[in-house]
């Protein structure tokens, strides 16, 4: 059946490169990645520490700290407009208003000496031109929406009065304050306990669906991705090495790294295995990446070519599935056997 909904691209990242100058050399944190998010869609950016997933989000928001950090090249098209070409003044109108961000550790991203109320109303007054009274009414509405009880009283409190879960609810409220069409959530629940993590993720999903907000979830947790994402981009050493619809990626991984990740985690829904199957070796040293595929030193499918030539991401097996692996066809055949 034809899907008649008009699908419009909300954000398109094209060939983005971001580097950091460090004492040990230049780190190519994001090394030429391209991906997009459609309106209302939830996309996950998955990978381990240092893979470039957070720097991707910071680059979109143009929050990469100079002079060490620099966006070298690429385009970030938001509804067709290149954010990298905007002036800083114009960019301030985008942050919070068009694209909001939720961080892992809410305590460090909330201002400890401003009341909860002020932190919510400030953006509303600046971005939305509301009067203090209007902004206050909207703040009460927002706190209610994210499930914080007794919102009137809460407005006068400070972040340290809030528990970790409530602070993250507050971050969700702040992100939604100006009705942005896109939220970037960087490890939004990693610092939280598992029962609170479930509450926050359910809340984010319900609100995103209800308000039609698109989301980029940045995480290392494969379970969170499976429950909440429509599409997944897997990153390794600054590149996207696999991308597919969530169901397709988990059912038919087409990159040895993704396969290795999925096989290395113990699963509660499966019989206990005698032994876990780890990915051998160490994570890559970003200042000394090999000339070929960055995953080659740890890869079970490595051939001579992998050490010489970095594979580009390419379509494998249809259904919008992409993989950056010379040996993807062999891997597919192995998994089918």
């Amino acid at each position, binding site marked *: 059946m034809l899907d008649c909904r008009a699908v419009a691209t909300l954000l398109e990242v094209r060939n983005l490169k971001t580097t950091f100058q460090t004492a040990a050399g230049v780190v190519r944190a994001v090394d030429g990645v391209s991906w997009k998010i459609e309106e209302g869609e939830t996309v996950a950016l998955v990978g*381990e*520490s240092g893979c470039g997933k957070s720097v991707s989000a910071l680059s979109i928001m143009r929050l990469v700290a100079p002079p060490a950090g620099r966006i070298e090249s690429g385009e970030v098209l938001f509804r067709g407009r290149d954010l990298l070409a905007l002036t800083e003044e114009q960019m301030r109108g985008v942050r919070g208003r068009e694209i909001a961000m939720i961080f892992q550790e809410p305590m460090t991203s909330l201002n400890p000496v401003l009341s909860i109320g002020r932190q919510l109303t400030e953006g509303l007054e600046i971005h939305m031109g509301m009067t203090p009274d209007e902004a206050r009414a909207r703040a009460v509405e927002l706190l209610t929406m994210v499930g914080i009880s007794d919102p009137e009283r809460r407005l006068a409190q400070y972040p340290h009065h809030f*528990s970790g*879960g*409530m602070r993250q609810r507050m971050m969700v409220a702040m992100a939604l304050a100006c009705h942005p069409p896109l939220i970037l959530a960087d490890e939004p629940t990693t610092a939280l*306990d*598992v*029962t*609170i*993590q*479930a*509450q926050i993720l*359910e809340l984010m999903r319900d609100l995103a669906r209800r308000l039609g907000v698109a989301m980029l979830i940045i995480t*290392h*947790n*494969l*379970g*969170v*991705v*499976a*429950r909440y994402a429509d599409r997944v981009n897997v990153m390794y050493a600054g590149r996207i090495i696999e991308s597919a619809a*969530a*169901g397709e990626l*988990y*059912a038919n991984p087409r990159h040895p790294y993704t396969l*290795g*990740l*999925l096989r*290395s*985690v*113990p*699963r*509660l*829904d499966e019989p*206990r*295995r005698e*032994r*876990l*199957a*780890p*990915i*051998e070796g*160490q*994570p890559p040293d970003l200042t000394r990446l090999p000339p070929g595929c960055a995953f080659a030193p*740890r890869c079970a499918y490595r051939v001579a070519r992998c050490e010489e030539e970095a594979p580009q991401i390419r379509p494998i097996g249809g259904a919008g599935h992409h993989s950056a692996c010379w040996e993807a066809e062999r891997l597919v055949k192995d998994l089918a056997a």
Partner: protein
Amino acid sequence: MSEALLEVSDLVKHFTVGGGILSGAAGLVRAIDGVSFTIERGETLGLVGESGCGKTTTGRCILQLERPTGGRILFEGRDLSALSVDELRKVRRRIQVIFQDPYSSLNPRMTVGQILAEPLKVHGIVPEKVARPARVRELLAQVGLAPQHARRYPHQLSGGQRQRVGIARALAMEPSLIVCDEPVSALDVSIQAQIINLLEDLQRRYGLTFLFIAHDLSVVRHISDRVAVMYLGKIVELADRKTLYEEPLHPYTRALLSAVPIPDPDVEARREHTVLRGEVPSPLRPPPGCVFHPRCPIAVDRCAAEVPALREIRPGHCAACHLA
């Protein structure tokens, strides 16, 4: 396998907070409120729960890093609180710890070789200086590191390699019990499985006993023989691995298991989730009756009035719930 290496009975640890000139009246944090369990020689007991449930404090009491407010800890049949300082020093050597963050628990100014040689010297395990480098190499090999790693500093190693050094340091003391406090939660997913396999290999080879403290229920299921679930300073359920994960009796255990997302979208789409209301109450003012009742999906009136005892519902399966 029936001899208890560690026997913890009715362990209580309270902390006093406040009471200063500025901070107002003193309050009592009931970090551990009557915890009992045993670990048999060669066994792994998993201790799970969310932050603030008392699992780490339990480990610290066993390590004698905290002085318990009440209760008894028997290690190899001897009451740790009844030992003299000298005796305790000797016994305590056989209880080692592996911490979550190897970076903050390794001295940044010492090489790996020095970090591993120091306990050999201090505790007189290898008294002759010339013999120590060989023992250090042996320890490195046991945890899968190369001899040249002895010359490196902690910051020159990856997270997984640092945790291997942490494990080697624990092994240096030739322990019988190792308290593993979130040993893999700071590591990347691809490295976690390496470290878990290593711990299992070492356990088999040296007959080690583990108290494995963690919040990741999938990892705990993989590594543990028996599992205890803690909530607000108490054990709410304790059973062998299979029973606990397949037939959990306590509503908190059920909720925890249901909250863990499974890395498979098809499974996730079919699963039912019980999302718990509210948050863990403050241990300064634990609720009356069952401490879990304000969040419990099946609580009845009795739960708010009467503290449920941890009782054996079926052989080897204990739960603290009136409705179990």
